[in-house]
């Protein structure tokens, strides 16, 4: 083949890959077409990689083959993790993607220096800064989600000033390198500063902020890949990076809105601290409790039940018991639906995946806007391991730290039952007045064990 023909082949495969990627995202809009989207993405990826192998610059395929095989072998277990580990796996894959982008940027710099145009150096700097901070930020997030790092937000005085100074230093170095691309000794600083910033950025972030943060890291990973596309003059990379970046950005906006907070507030707010003081001032009145037997009786007598799951359900791995409860109630003619808050869990859509894994049909999983109008006509709401997203204080208590956050209006149902380990406040550190309402019954215990007991009382499930 002549060189011109191979170039054309590469361009055609890239064009096809671009179209397939866009179709992949379009097909993700509904569960019925979503798997087709995955296939389109796979085909596009295979075409693009296949086309790239024709690149005339490639003189040695030996190491490419080895790296592709080793990387694929590492990828398989990352694709087979348990569904409860999906948030940390996602954080880890943000780190991997950004790692790759930062490495390519670094390699490009040392290959081209000192002959780098202002424009090229600007995009390389952006690529390396965004890539590096996403690597350490995502690793920190994965560590917190895997609970190898403390999940509690860690704050200190002047934190934001220190963090922003480090990032500013990286930007100053980047500007200097744009003007003096021959200063190779400065390049390690351009890598190191964002790496440190990435760590410090996640230190003050608490568990319940993870959905926003994971989405934000997703956006950064996408933007760094787009910057790489500018550096390599690859339209395919620019488009893939822009799509990933906008996806991460949209999810971050949805998550922040669902918590009634701005990005800056998530990143610089260290939520947990403010709330801890609000909790201390409160004197806890008595609550009503119920046993599994009583709870089963109330559920069996209901016509309609809405189950509201939260992170506590994921921690207790209670989703399969919840499915048994769903089936036992269905068998008795009780209508059961699920009300899912956008930030329930540790990443966008977390609860849906866990409940789908437990074989609960997705047409029973309703998001906040769809379910909220149904609470007043609902006999029983069963809250499993969710706290702040059900707190009526968000609706009416102007002094509450979560005031204004959209919540699931579970308190409007006729009876509310809450499965909870103890009365200790949740992530927010604020009391939930829902627990003290006369219509509320507290079911103290481990979510999985308690739901299992209810199922047994209803005479269903396997034991």
């Amino acid at each position, binding site marked *: 083949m002549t060189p011109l023909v191979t170039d054309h082949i590469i361009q055609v495969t890239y064009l096809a890959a671009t179209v397939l990627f866009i179709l992949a995202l379009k097909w993700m809009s509904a569960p019925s077409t979503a798997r087709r989207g995955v296939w389109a993405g796979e085909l596009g990826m295979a075409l693009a990689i296949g086309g790239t192998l024709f690149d005339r610059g490639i003189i040695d395929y030996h190491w490419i083959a080895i790296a592709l095989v080793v990387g694929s072998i590492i990828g398989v277990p*990352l694709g087979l993790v348990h569904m409860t580990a999906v948030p940390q796996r996602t954080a880890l894959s943000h780190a991997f993607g950004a790692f*790759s982008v930062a490495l*390519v940027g670094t390699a490009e710099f*040392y290959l081209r220096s000192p002959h780098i145009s202002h424009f090229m150096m600007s995009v390389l700097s952006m690529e390396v800064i965004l890539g590096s901070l996403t690597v350490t930020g995502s690793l920190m997030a994965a560590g917190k989600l895997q609970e190898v790092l403390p999940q509690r937000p860690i704050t200190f005085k002047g934190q934001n000033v220190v963090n922003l100074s480090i990032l500013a230093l990286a930007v100053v170095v980047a500007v200097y390198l744009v003007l003096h691309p021959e200063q190779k000794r400065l390049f390690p600083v351009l890598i190191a500063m964002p790496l440190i910033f990435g760590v410090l950025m996640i230190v003050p972030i608490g568990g319940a902020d993870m959905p926003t943060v994971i989405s934000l890291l997703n956006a950064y990973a996408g933007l760094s890949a*787009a910057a790489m596309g500018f550096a390599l003059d690859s339209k395919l990379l620019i488009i893939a990076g822009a799509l990933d970046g*906008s996806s991460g950005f949209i999810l971050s906006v949805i998550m922040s809105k669902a918590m009634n907070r701005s990005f800056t507030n998530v990143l610089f707010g260290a939520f947990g601290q403010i709330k801890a003081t609000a909790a201390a001032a409160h004197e806890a009145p008595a609550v009503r409790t119920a046993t599994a037997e009583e709870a089963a009786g109330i559920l069996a007598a209901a016509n309609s039940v809405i189950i509201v799951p939260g992170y506590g359900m994921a921690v207790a791995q209670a989703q399969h018991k919840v499915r048994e409860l769903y089936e036992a109630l269905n068998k008795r003619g009780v209508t059961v639906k699920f009300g899912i808050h956008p930030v329930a869990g540790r990443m966008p859509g977390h609860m849906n995946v866990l409940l*789908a894994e437990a074989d609960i049909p997705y047409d029973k999983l309703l*998001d906040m806007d769809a379910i909220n109008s149904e609470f007043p006509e609902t006999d029983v709401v069963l809250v499993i391991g969710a706290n702040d997203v059900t707190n009526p204080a968000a609706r009416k208590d102007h002094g509450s730290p979560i005031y204004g956050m959209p919540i699931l209006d579970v308190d409007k149902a006729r009876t509310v039952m809450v499965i909870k380990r103890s009365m200790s406040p949740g992530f927010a550190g604020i009391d939930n007045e829902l627990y003290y309402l006369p219509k509320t019954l507290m079911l103290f215990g481990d979510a999985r064990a308690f739901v299992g007991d209810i199922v047994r009382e209803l005479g269903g499930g396997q034991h």
Partner: protein
Amino acid sequence: MTADLITSLYVFLLAAFLGFEVIKRVSPLLHTPLMSLTNALDAIAVVGAIVILGERKSPLSTVLGALAVGASISNVVGGFLITDRMLKMFKTTKTKKS
């Protein structure tokens, strides 16, 4: 260079707008698989890494390129695999009974 830059900026902006419009329509049900899918697509960075590795212009670029190819291809494989596993689990009341 400037003409290329301008074209690239157009491409970036159009792709970002297209991304917003398409992804806005994704059901909240599927936000987790959406993130793992975009992650896998984003690993298209592998094509840049393959060229850097294959060109073997310097020992440093070869080592960095090899690591980059490995990291992105693991995202490709793992990302598509887990997205498909998740999506397979989503069933409606009807499909479940049939």
